[in-house]
């Protein structure tokens, strides 16, 4: 089962949980399972035809935009981190 780490801003949608475990072989499948459990997350995560612009998703610390996007494979021990886009500097 993949572990999903959620940022503070999304926790109101998961009854306060910071880490959620769901099944799925790809990021897309994992997100579908996550949204099924917490439907209000749908509008937060999804944008035009994919991931919302202000969301960064990392599988084992690598941004899925540079892997296979929502088709990026997820292993049993994978950790998925969702982060808001935050500017630094």
């Amino acid at each position, binding site marked *: 089962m993949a572990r999903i780490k959620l940022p503070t801003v999304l926790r109101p949608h998961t009854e306060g949980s910071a880490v959620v475990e769901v099944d799925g072989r790809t990021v897309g499948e994992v997100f579908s399972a996550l949204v099924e459990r917490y439907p209000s997350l749908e509008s937060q995560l999804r944008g035009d035809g994919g991931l919302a*612009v202000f969301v*960064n998703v*990392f599988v084992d610390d690598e941004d899925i*935009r*540079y892997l296979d996007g929502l088709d990026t494979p997820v292993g049993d021990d994978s950790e998925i981190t969702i*982060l808001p886009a935050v*500017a*630094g*500097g």
Partner: protein
Amino acid sequence: MTTSTLDLAASLRRWGIVRTPLVRLRRIEPPGVAIYAKCEWCQPTGSVKDRVAAAMVARATAEGILRPGVRLVEASSGNTGIALARLAAVTGHPLTVVVPENVTEERIRLLEAFGADIVLSPPDEGSNGAVRMAERIASEHGWVMLHQYENPANVAAHEQTTGPEIVDELDQVDAFVACLGTGGTLMGVGRALRRVWPEVRVVAAEPPVGETIAGLRTLADGYVPPIFDPDAIDGRLLVRLGDALATLRRLVATEGLAAGPSSGAAVHAAVRVARRLDAGSVVVTILPDGLERYLSAGILDLDDERAGGLTLW
């Protein structure tokens, strides 16, 4: 005059910006791959932002937006604010800096020493709140805000100085790794390196940022800097604070480099990238600032949990 025809390198030299040392991390690099790091704390206020502040002032001056004596407004209490405060002192522009109330005394003192006026913004609104307040003040008074997140001079500073300095010193670069803040370093250095080595991999290190610092309420409050083009890089690695700090301690203790926490993140990511490259490859990274600005916050002894609310660059 456009940013591309403006000779930024000459302006930067005139204002004391220097060519920084590029040192090889022999005790940290994995076997067979060389990692070089550029020490940006050697700049006048101790960070890479001296380049950016000087380039933005040069551009605004060349375009006639920043006339002599006109007041500047900035929302950063970090390296950009400090760099701009010094440059404002050098060029004779008055400067107002908006900072969240919970910023360290040390930073406010430094800004004031350079002659900046300080305006405090509500701490619970974070850096986003400070930016909003600065924008309001700027438009009310007709003062100039340089907006590093959308200012092409931020990218040009690196394309015309940081990048060429690397090209001058090395015969080969296979990957370039830098922290993603505004995206200026990644975009600018990336462009300069690709001109010489089209196949170079450009990888962003995502340093650990407290959401609380930015003052986010929802994901839609997030921000992708307009100068950052995600398609212009080849990968992005998330760096855990614990890993960044462990690497930082090694940088200080084994390489003798008193770098700041974002340098720990950059080098951690550079090592990850280097491990996947063939033997004989060369990786370059940027150490954005030095350690001393963070010592009073006890940075070397922090763990993930306690560092959540600190400004780490």
